[in-house]
């Protein structure tokens, strides 16, 4: 009997340890449930309900929310047709987000490379400059862009003063305005991870490639880009995901006319009072973001091997 004594002690200790572990995990689980999974369940639920007349939902099951994502029903005879407006907004969101990511990459890559090749003592200063815009409210930064590009703005004023144009160029309320605003706002999110991966880049690899007959372009393609690929992928995700859900920038710079997905969702919960459609659109956005993240995980997994 004495031999089993330590054994039961051990079992008890194990049980205690298991319980303690769950206790320690409890705050994380609560936060996860309250902040992420709970609202998600609510959104999924709402997307399958009927819209209330003055907002909110009526507790009846319905596909209407999801059908509304891609189709509209004729108010007179109820026949369904493709929702051209939604599809064009969806397309604009994807297109502008992809373009934003591309331009951020084109501008951010040389910027990050420039900073990473400065003497160590100067790098922090340059990075500070890159992050300064973050200290200002997004709304203010967006209005600043507006001040630049509106018809009476600085750019048009300058071009008119130079005599290059005599009519202001219409830039506000176009896709260009949204693109400009998003590239400006999200560029630091591209530069930061790119810089982080470039700073770790072993510059003797570049010399080794030069030494082995690689031209500067091939050094870039065969050595620098593969080495900083995790930074490129991370930066692209950091720019693409918020661009897809952007709300403030298209609202101000796109006026009421050039909507993006975020504005469409807001519209459903506000003026249109169609919460199920808003919920379904939100979930559509979530699926797109998740797809982007899966691409990211795949790409970085390939890198890690």
């Amino acid at each position, binding site marked *: 009997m004495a031999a089993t004594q330590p054994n039961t002690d051990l079992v008890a200790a194990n049980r205690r340890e298991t319980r303690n572990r769950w206790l320690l995990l409890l705050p994380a689980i609560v936060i996860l449930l309250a902040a992420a999974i709970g609202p998600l369940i609510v959104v999924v639920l709402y997307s399958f309900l009927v819209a209330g007349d003055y907002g909110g939902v009526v507790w009846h099951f319905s596909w209407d929310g999801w059908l509304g994502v891609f189709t509209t029903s004729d108010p007179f005879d109820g026949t369904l047709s493709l929702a051209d407006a939604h599809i064009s907004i969806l397309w604009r969101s994807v297109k502008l987000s992809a373009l934003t990511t591309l331009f951020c990459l084109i501008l951010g890559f040389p910027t990050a490379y420039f900073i990473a090749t400065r003497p160590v003592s100067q790098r922090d200063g340059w990075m500070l400059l890159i992050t300064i815009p973050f200290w200002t409210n997004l709304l203010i930064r967006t209005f600043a862009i507006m001040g630049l590009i509106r018809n009476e703005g600085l750019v048009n004023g300058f071009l008119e003063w130079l005599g290059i144009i005599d009519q202001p160029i219409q830039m506000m309320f176009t896709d260009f305005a949204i693109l400009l605003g998003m590239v400006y706002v999200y560029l630091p999110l591209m530069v930061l991870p790119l810089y982080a991966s470039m700073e770790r880049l*072993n510059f003797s*690899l570049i*010399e*080794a490639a030069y030494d082995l*007959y*690689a*031209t500067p372009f*091939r050094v870039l393609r065969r050595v620098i880009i593969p080495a900083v690929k995790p930074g490129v992928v991370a930066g692209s995700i950091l720019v693409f995901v918020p661009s897809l859900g952007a709300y403030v920038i298209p609202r101000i710079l796109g006026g009421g006319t050039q909507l993006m997905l975020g504005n469409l969702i807001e519209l459903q919960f506000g003026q249109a009072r169609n919460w199920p459609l808003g919920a379904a659109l939100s979930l559509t956005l979530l699926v797109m973001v998740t797809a982007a993240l899966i691409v990211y995980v795949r790409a970085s997994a390939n890198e890690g*091997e």
Partner: protein
Amino acid sequence: MIEVDRIHVRFGEGPGAFIALNDVSVTIGESEFFTLLGPSGCGKTTLLRSIAGFIHPNEGAIRLAGQDILSLPPFKRPVNTVFQNYALFPHMTVAENVGFGLEMLGRPRAEVTRTVEEMLALVKMTAMANRRPSELSGGQQQRVALARALAPKPKVLLLDESLSALDLKLRKEMQIELKRLQSETGITFIFVTHDQEEALTMSDRIAVMSAGKIRQIGTPREIYDHPRERFVADFIGDTNFVQAKLFADGTVELPGGARIRASLPKDAVPANRAVTLVIRPEQTVLEQAPEQAQLSGVLENVVYCGTDTHYHLTLTDGARFVVRRQNNPARPVTFEKGQRLGIGFDPQAAQVLEG
């Protein structure tokens, strides 16, 4: 083959500029194993990087097979480097690393594959062809770096302290391996090291450098037996310096009065002047009778070092002198501390230096 012609390299501008290479000239022959030897910071890497094309000298010329290569960027010079930290591409396999140079030269795929196999066999890394550099030990990475630099069959291979990161045993192995590779490929090797023993055992010729200048160029034997200046004698091997006086008839007077015919430098030295004699500790013997020896001194200390024993003496003029004697248990000798002993050596093994 490769001619470095009076190059100067300065870092920085104006009066505060640092002169890393000062009027350096050297001509290195075909299939030669040439070593740059010198203390850290003397400019070895700078010279190597000038040849590779990463540094552009402020003055002078570098010619390869008669053609000036200074205007060529690194990727157009038929010269490859084995970097000190290997600099293997982490995202490529061993085989891809080795094939990189050939691929950049636009060689057909079949030729690349075949040469990569040859090179991996040459450095005995065939089994590792599909590994990543991070999965290799230091010595294995070293071999891959070598294979990668050799694969494009460069005219000159530059090796910067390539063995210094390895532990002693592996280093000895790689020294032999390097010599074998060099003689099998017939490629000119320019090898940088601060380890004088490594330089002596591996090189056809050595250039001893200090403070941005080449002090002496010669075969290991010339450098060791006939150093031309005090720095070279001091840096290579252990050395005794003895103050002496040179006479017009070519004889040298030692402290204590003995006159010998020592080995004179190639350039004539003005007579009736104080000179320094370089005498290697292992080329001397201790004698019980101080009167008949060329030099004499009082034994201060005896240090046992396994294969040999070092005897530290003080000469009549107060200078320190070390005699090294190989240990032989069959013929033990005992010299007492404080005893006055003679020091014997072959006069030809004593090198006269100016000043």
